[in-house]
C-alpha cells in the first residue's frame, strides 16, 4: 500500500490550489429530453407504482422509473447504477430528496426493458437491488441519518431500523392504496440531523441516561468551560473531585436537568452517554411539510420509548404497522396522518392504533407545553 500522490505538495499547500469552485453546473447533467423541455412541462401521470410520465408542451414525454435505495451505498452498487443508466438512459440518472434513484427514458418503448432489468437484480442475500415504487398515495423511502455506522452520539442505528421498517412497509412502497402520501423518516438522536420533526411517522433514537463522567481524564481531554457551555439546559457545572487520592478538576451533572442530547459529549469525550438499557426509540406521528389543504405540522410523540431490539426492532415495526393500518382504514381521501388524527381527535388516534397513552406524552417542556393541553370541553370519552 504505497502512498500515491495526487500532485498535492504538502510543503506548498497553496501551489496550484483550486478552491471555491462549487458544485458541477446542474444542466451539464440533464438528459436531453429534460434540457429541451425544462420549464415547459404540461402535466404528469403515475402510470403504475414507481413509474411516472411527464408530458411537455412540445409533445415530448419523459418516463421515470423510481427505485428505492439504501442511502448507504457502495461504489460497486453505484457502478451498477451507472451500468443500468448507460444501458437504458443514455448515461443519465438522478437521485431524489428521499434517497430514491430515478432512471429516465424518452419513450414508452424503453420502459419495460428497463423495469425488467431493475427488478431482476438482487443482492446475494436475496433483497432487491432496485425495487420500483415510492410514488403517489403510498410510502416512499425513509430518509435517515448515520446511526451506529458512523456517528458518535446515536441512540440507535439508522440503516438497521430503516431496513427493518421498510421490509415491513414494502407493500406500501409498491402500492398506492393509502388516503394520501405517508412519509416516514428516521433520526438517530434528538439533534435530528435528519429533521424528522415534520413527518407522518418519525423514528427517533433517544438516550435516557445522563452522561457518565470519566473524572480521571476529563480535565486532560476537555476544555471544561466548553463542555459547560455546550449544555442547552445548563445542567453541567464545574466541580472538584478526588480520584485515588488526587484532587482533580472536573464537572458535575444535575441529572434531573439533563435532556440527554449528547452535546457535552461532542465537546468532551470524557462524558459518554450511550447505554444499552437507556437507549432506544421514540415514535412520533402526524407531521407534514406540504401546505396542501392544511398547514405544515410538527410530528407528535406517540410512543415514549421502545428498546433497541437488534437486529430487526420488532416492537417498533409492529407499532408502525398498526399506525399505518389504522390510518389506511380510518382516514378520508386526501387526509394526511396528522389531519386524520386532528379530525377524529388524538384520543381516538390512540384507540385506533392500539397505543397506550402514558404520562410521558403530556408536554412539560417550557412554554410551548401549555398550548398542547386540552382547553375545551370538546373531547370524546
Amino acid at each position, binding site marked *: 500500500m504505497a502512498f500515491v500522490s495526487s500532485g498535492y505538495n504538502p510543503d506548498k499547500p497553496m501551489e496550484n490550489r483550486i478552491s471555491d469552485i462549487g458544485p458541477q453546473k446542474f444542466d451539464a447533467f440533464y438528459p436531453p429530453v429534460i434540457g429541451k423541455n425544462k420549464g415547459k412541462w404540461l*402535466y404528469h401521470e403515475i402510470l403504475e407504482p414507481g413509474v411516472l410520465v411527464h408530458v411537455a408542451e412540445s409533445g415530448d414525454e419523459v418516463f421515470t422509473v423510481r427505485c428505492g435505495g439504501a442511502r448507504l451505498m457502495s*461504489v460497486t452498487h453505484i457502478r451498477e447504477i451507472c451500468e443500468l443508466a448507460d444501458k437504458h438512459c443514455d448515461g443519465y440518472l438522478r437521485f431524489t430528496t428521499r434517497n430514491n434513484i430515478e432512471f429516465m427514458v424518452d419513450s414508452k418503448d424503453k420502459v419495460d426493458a428497463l423495469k425488467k432489468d431493475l427488478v431482476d437484480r438482487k443482492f446475494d*442475500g436475496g433483497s432487491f437491488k432496485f425495487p420500483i415504487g415510492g410514488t*403517489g398515495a403510498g410510502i416512499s423511502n425513509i430518509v435517515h441519518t448515520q446511526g451506529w455506522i458512523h456517528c458518535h452520539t446515536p441512540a440507535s442505528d439508522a440503516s438497521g431500523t430503516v431496513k427493518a421498517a421498510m421490509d415491513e412497509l414494502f407493500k406500501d412502497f409498491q402500492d398506492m392504496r393509502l388516503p394520501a402520501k405517508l412519509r416516514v423518516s428516521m433520526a438517530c438522536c434528538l439533534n435530528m440531523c435528519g429533521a424528522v*420533526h415534520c413527518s407522518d411517522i418519525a423514528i427517533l433514537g433517544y438516550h435516557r441516561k445522563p452522561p457518565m463522567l470519566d473524572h480521571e481524564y476529563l480535565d486532560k481531554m476537555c476544555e471544561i468551560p466548553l463542555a459547560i457551555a455546550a449544555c442547552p439546559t445548563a445542567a453541567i457545572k464545574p466541580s472538584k473531585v478526588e480520584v485515588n487520592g488526587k484532587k482533580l478538576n472536573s464537572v458535575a451533572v444535575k441529572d434531573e436537568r439533563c435532556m440527554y442530547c449528547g452535546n457535552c459529549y461532542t465537546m468532551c469525550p470524557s462524558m459518554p452517554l450511550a447505554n444499552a438499557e437507556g437507549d432506544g426509540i421514540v415514535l412520533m406521528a402526524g407531521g407534514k411539510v406540504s401546505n396542501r389543504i392544511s398547514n405544515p405540522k410538527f410530528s407528535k410523540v406517540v410512543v415514549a420509548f421502545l428498546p433497541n431490539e437488534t437486529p430487526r426492532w420488532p416492537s417498533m415495526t409492529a407499532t408502525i404497522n398498526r399506525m399505518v393500518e389504522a390510518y389506511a382504514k380510518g382516514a378520508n381521501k386526501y387526509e394526511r396522518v396528522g389531519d386524520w388524527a386532528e379530525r377524529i381527535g388524538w384520543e381516538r388516534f390512540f384507540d385506533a392504533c392500539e397505543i397506550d397513552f402514558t404520562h410521558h406524552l403530556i408536554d412539560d417542556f417550557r412554554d410551548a407545553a401549555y398550548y398542547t393541553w386540552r382547553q375545551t370541553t370538546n373531547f370524546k370519552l
Partner: protein
Amino acid sequence: MAKHETPLLDQLESGPWPSFVSDLKQEAASRAKNEKNVEYQIPQDVVEDLLGVLELSFVHKRTHWKHGGIVGVFGYGGGVIGRYCDQPEMFPGVAHFHTMRVNQPAGKFYKTDFLRNLCDLWDFRGSGLTNMHGSTGDVILLGTTTPQLEEIFFELTHNMNQDLGGSGSNLRTPSDCVGQARCEFACYDTQALCHAMTVEYQDELHRPAFPYKFKFKFDGCPNCCVASIARSDMSFIGRWKDEIRVDQEAVQGYIGGELVPNGGAHSGRDWGAFDIQKEIIDICPTGCMTMDGKELKINNKECNCCMHCINAMPRALRIGKDTGCSILVGAKAPILDGAQMGSLLVPFISTDDPYDEIKEVIESIWDWWMEEGKNRERLGELIKRQGFQKMLDMTNIKPMPQHVQEPRTNPYIFWKSEEVPGGFDADITEFRKHHQR
C-alpha cells in the same frame, strides 16, 4: 471467509428492501479480490472492519465511534468530519474513518462518467462507501484517513472540477427539489437559484464565520418536496400571484371520468368516481372555487396557493404565469427550545437572474445574525429572542398581516420612545403642578 462473524447483521440480508449489509459485503468482497489492481490508499479490509464494528454495536447496543478531532483541508473550515473508532485494535481498518462532504449538483441529476470518476477516486483513496445522499444534500464519502484528505481534495478540484460541501458553523450545502427540470408545478427555476446562491456564497460555505449552521433550501411550489419550510434557516418556496390557468374541457374530462384524477396517485384503491364537489370544492381551504354550470370558477384573489386542486387535476389546472417565490426564515429541528417551522418574511419576491433582491434579503439577515447571534444560536432562535419586529427593522421589510397567523392576544407592546408624541422624557415638575403628591 469473512474477517468477522456478523450473525446479527446477517439477519438484515433477508427481506425485500435493498440490504445495506449485502451491499457492504459485496464491497468487502470486491476490495478483497481487487480485480482492477487498485493501489488502495487506505486498508483493503476497511469494509470488513466496518461490518465488524457495526456488528459489535448491534451486540452492545451502543455506538463505537468517537467524535473526531479537527481535521480538514487547508483553508477550509468545513466539508470534512473527523471520525475515529473506539476499538482501533479490533478494527484497525476503520481506526481513522473521516467523512468528506461533496457538494452535489442542484437537482441531483448525474451523468454516469462523473459518478464513475467519483467511484474510482473513492475506491482508490477511501472506503468505497458513500451516502447517496446525506440529509443536507451532499454526496457523502464515508471513511478515509487524514493523509488522504488533501489528496482527495486535490483530485476533486483538479480532475473533476468539483468542490466540497459545508459543515460546522458555515452556510451548509444548499439543496433543491427537481423543479422546472421535470415538474409542471415549479414556480421558479430551483436549480438555477440553488446553484447561483451556492456559487455566490462559496466563502460563507467553506469558512466558518457564522454563529452556527445556516441552511438554504429551495422548493419550487408549496408542496415542499425538499421540506424547506421545516428544515432550512431560509426557505425559498415558489408561488404565483396571478390566476390559476384552467382548461375547462379537461375539468369536464375529470368530472366525466375520462381523465385519471390526482395524476394516478390514488389508483391503489377504488375510491369511487371522482367527485369535484366533494374532493376539490368542499375541501379547498379558502372556499374560493365554485361550479357555475359546466364551468369551474376560481376566485383567484382568495386562493392561498395550497396546490390541492392543481395536484388533484394536473391536466386541467396549472400554476399562474406571474411567478416568483416566498421567503420563510428560522426553521430548525427541536433542539433546543422546540422545533420551529419557517416564518414568513417575504410574501413574494422576484426570482429573476441575477437575484439581486434575494441577495439583499439574505445579506441583511446575515448582517443581523452575525452581529447579534450568540454562539450556537440558530436564526430561528435569534428571531424568538429579539423578536420578529426586530427582524423586520433589520431587513427593512414592512409589517403586513401576512406575517402573522393572527395578531397578538396581549396588549403588552413595547413602544419605542419615538413612537409616542413627546417621547419618554416627561417633566415631573410640570406634572406636579396639576397633581399633588
